[in-house]
């Protein structure tokens, strides 16, 4: 027997760096086993296991944020500050969704324990998407996320809307995956590798066929990711899917799935930095379209979940602005704005969905805006929390949403993307009108429209709402230290550095 047969562990394998993902996947597995062994329809243990696992994974990811970046397993996995922060965000998004899931699913009478393992695996998929520069690994992460979500969207099996949501999400998701996969194939053809780091080399090589092949491949990859991130004009699935999917799943899609998609986009654009002149103009227009269409379409919505779906589209537009600014002027713009906005967006969106989920009771759920009527009386806590989330979603100072937009606005100016900054500001003003519709429904509208039955806020939902509210406020109050943690010490200097203006 040769020596190497004993135990040749790959040299660059770092179990701890992979830890967060492994823990989440394993927790999903354990949760599934617990689900199989449990008595009757009591998901308490499943939820408990999931929460503990997520907390451990989150702590592991957070503890590594400050460590130097390194690639492991021959570049399949990358641990850096950005990846760690996104992992923490993914875990947080999942945790918050899980917290308010059980009460909601019980009210809706679809308390299937399988939902929790699937949410955990989706989270793991998202975490992979943030921590790799290898296209196949990224793709596997994306599929893990997507496939889990296809199932979750259809969780409410007897509801036609939920089925429609799942099918629509599946078909369009598959469509997007096809684009992505084709793009990856062309990428491989052009570079002879699946590692994103090869882009620069090929692009500067001057080999024309390779360059054009790479450009087409990148375009296809970007289109695939635009589907996932719900940029206009690739957004049409979003409102239908969010509306039909169970509200806790919609919350996770809106926050977690978006964070993951944007993180993967970040990885791809980061690698495609040398080609910036090529992809900046189209994405510039996509960003404008996304902000404009998302906000205008939201104005006419009568359904709370569709409204939040369009809101999430417009926020995707703001995030794209942050991405573009980051990669147009990488020397002056740090990751801080993007990460901060992702965090702030996750908290307020999940919070808003959690408030909407309060409307579900006795196996039925109406998500029309009028379902929120009288909320101030039925559940004052949820109603006050909703005020806070709307405050933040609009982007008024006093909550994290404002600082997020401020940072993006600043970066857009710093990167000389003035039109984007202007559209962002105008879009924010327009958004006031439709966000106020949520407030109107919960606070102002006539109570006679409200359903008389009162569903008390369960502990999990209350906890989730409390954490989201604390998050929105905490991000605002402790913005200084948080930015330092998210973007590293470098950012502190960059904050005050003078803006380099071109022309």
């Amino acid at each position, binding site marked *: 027997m040769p020596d190497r047969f004993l135990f040749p562990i790959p040299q660059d394998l770092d179990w701890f760096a992979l830890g967060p993902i492994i823990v989440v996947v394993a927790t999903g597995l354990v949760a599934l086993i617990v689900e199989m062994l449990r008595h009757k329809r009591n998901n308490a243990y499943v939820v408990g296991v999931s929460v503990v696992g997520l907390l451990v994974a989150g702590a592991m990811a957070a503890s590594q944020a400050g460590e130097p970046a390194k690639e492991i397993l021959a570049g399949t996995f990358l641990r850096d500050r950005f990846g760690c922060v996104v992992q923490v965000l993914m875990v947080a998004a999942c945790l918050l969704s899980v917290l308010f899931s059980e009460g909601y699913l019980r009210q809706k009478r679809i308390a299937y324990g399988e939902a929790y393992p699937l949410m955990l695996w989706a989270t793991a998929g998202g975490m992979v998407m943030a921590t790799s520069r290898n296209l196949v690994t990224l793709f596997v992460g994306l599929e893990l996320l997507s496939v889990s979500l296809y199932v979750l969207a259809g969780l409410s099996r007897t509801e036609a809307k939920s089925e429609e949501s799942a099918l629509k999400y599946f078909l369009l998701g598959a469509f997007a995956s096809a684009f992505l996969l084709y793009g990856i194939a062309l990428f491989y053809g052009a570079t002879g590798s699946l590692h994103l780091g090869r882009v620069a080399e090929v692009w500067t090589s001057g080999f024309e066929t390779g360059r054009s092949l790479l450009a087409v491949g990148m375009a296809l990859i970007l289109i695939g990711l635009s589907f996932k991130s719900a940029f206009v004009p690739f957004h049409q699935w979003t409102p239908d899917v969010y509306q039909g999917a169970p509200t806790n799943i919609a919350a996770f899609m809106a926050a977690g799935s978006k964070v993951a998609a944007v993180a993967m986009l970040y990885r791809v654009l980061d690698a495609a930095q040398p080609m910036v002149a090529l992809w900046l103009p189209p994405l510039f227009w996509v960003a404008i379209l996304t902000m404009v269409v998302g906000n205008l379409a939201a104005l006419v919505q009568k359904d709370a979940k569709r409204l939040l779906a369009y809101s999430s589209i417009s926020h995707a537009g703001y995030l794209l602005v942050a991405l573009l600014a980051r990669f147009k002027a990488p020397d002056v713009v740090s990751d801080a704005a993007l990460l901060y906005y992702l965090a702030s967006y996750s908290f307020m969106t999940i919070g808003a969905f959690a408030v909407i989920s309060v409307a579900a009771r006795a196996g039925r759920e109406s998500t029309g805006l009028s379902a929120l009527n009288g909320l101030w009386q039925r559940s004052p806590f949820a109603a006050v929390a909703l005020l806070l989330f709307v405050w933040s979603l609009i982007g008024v100072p006093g909550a994290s949403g404002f600082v997020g937009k401020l940072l993006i606005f600043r970066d857009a100016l710093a990167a000389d993307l003035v039109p984007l900054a202007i559209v962002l*500001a105008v879009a924010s003003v327009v958004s006031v009108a439709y966000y106020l519709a949520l407030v109107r429904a919960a606070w102002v509208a006539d109570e006679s429209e409200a359903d008389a039955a009162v569903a008390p806020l369960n502990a999990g939902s209350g906890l989730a709402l409390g954490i989201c509210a604390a998050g929105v406020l905490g991000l605002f109050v402790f913005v200084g230290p948080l930015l330092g943690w998210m973007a590293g010490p470098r950012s502190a200097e960059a904050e005050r550095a003078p803006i380099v203006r071109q022309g």
Partner: protein
Amino acid sequence: MSLVLDHLLSIIVLAPFAGCLLLLALPPEWKTASRVVALVSGGISLALSCVAWALYDGAKGGFQFRESYQWIPGLDIRYSLGADGISLSMLLLTGVIIVTGVFASWTLEERCKEFLTLLLFLVTGVFGVFVALDLFFLFLFYEIAVLPMYLLIGIWGTGRKEYSAMKLTLYLMLGSAFILTGILALYYLDPRRTFDMLELSGGSELAVGLQRALFFAFYLGFGVLAGIFPFHTWSPDGHASAPTAVSMLHAGVLMKLGAYGVIRTCVAMFPEVAPSLMPIVAAIAAINIVYGAFSALGQTDLKYVIAYSSVSHMGVVMLGIASLAPVGMAGAVMQMFSHGIMTGLFFALVGLVYQKAHTRDILAMGGFARRMPGIAVAFTVGGLASFGLPGTSGFVAETLVFLGTFARYPVIVAVAVTGVVITAVYVLRVVQKVFLGPLGEAWSELPDARSTEWVALVSLAALLVAVGVWPMPLVNLINHGLRTLGMEL
């Protein structure tokens, strides 16, 4: 004690907020307790504002009671407070209006706790704007003062309340966008890279064109709230739909935030370009005065009359600011104070009349003085102050404004003064139609004001007369404030 004195302004700002949090914890059934909490927390702010007034060292001038804490080091945003004479007079005004506002809405039963919570939240923002010395916090407090209005009008309003609430909110958010753009542009373009208002005031090294643009951003942004023509249309709708205490606060104090903002930004930060642009401001102010007065003349809804009179009177404030001279500026601040008290009184009265007569249609009323003599007297006092009869605060303020601006803009002022005449016409018309003449059959059982309501009416009316008869303390206070703008009487 020194803990209180060292953080005087913080306590003034945060007392209503503490009351707001306390109210959230109270059960909704405890209505009287809620009112007492609101009254006490507003009262603390009023009392401490008086203390600040007494302790303010006029000889030293400038911004006093400074507090400054680093908040975001990277962006150099500081929690920085301070008050000069202008701020202090506005603090006093706000304190008076919130306390009387709580008294005036003592009988409100519907969702009482929520109402008071929002009212206190809003007042937190108002106090904050008047003492903030950091543009970031100025904007933060500004939004806190503006946004609760949507709920306050939407829930407790009357008439087309949701339309008015939405219109008001959208207009003011548009204004906020201008302000924010101005703040950020100033921050990023100015080499000083600071949000510190003290550092920024006194002049800017930016190109003149840029300064002009910034001037207009701030003027339009704050001007929307001050009700400048043609962005005033939210104001009559909003004020007419709002419940009594909210109208009082909004017309009495919130519109002053706009004028205050213009003083702190346009006047203080761009002294180079301000003289060349102020004629525009003055002209628009004159339109406000005359157009607002004519509009008030044409209204049959009592509340709309008062609302349009606010548009007209805010024109006087803006005209005074446009003078850029100490007399006019002092008049402007004086008018802010005077109009705040006056319009607070008016809206309290209109609220009472409506509450008792269940109509606001002037043409349907008549002879009310016989059934409600107290209200009639108070209304007449307010009306006299409104067109500036000597012996009322309105006289002092308007005289100062017109004196201070005449030399600079003779034509504009000549036009604007006609507004005063029209004001006299519509005020006297209302007094005649509503309170004089024969009493209609339907009104034979009308009651006069009641205990808590008296507190509001008497104190406001007395203030109007007191300031009119003996204005020197207030004028002195304002005068100390003008020194921070490089002016002095």
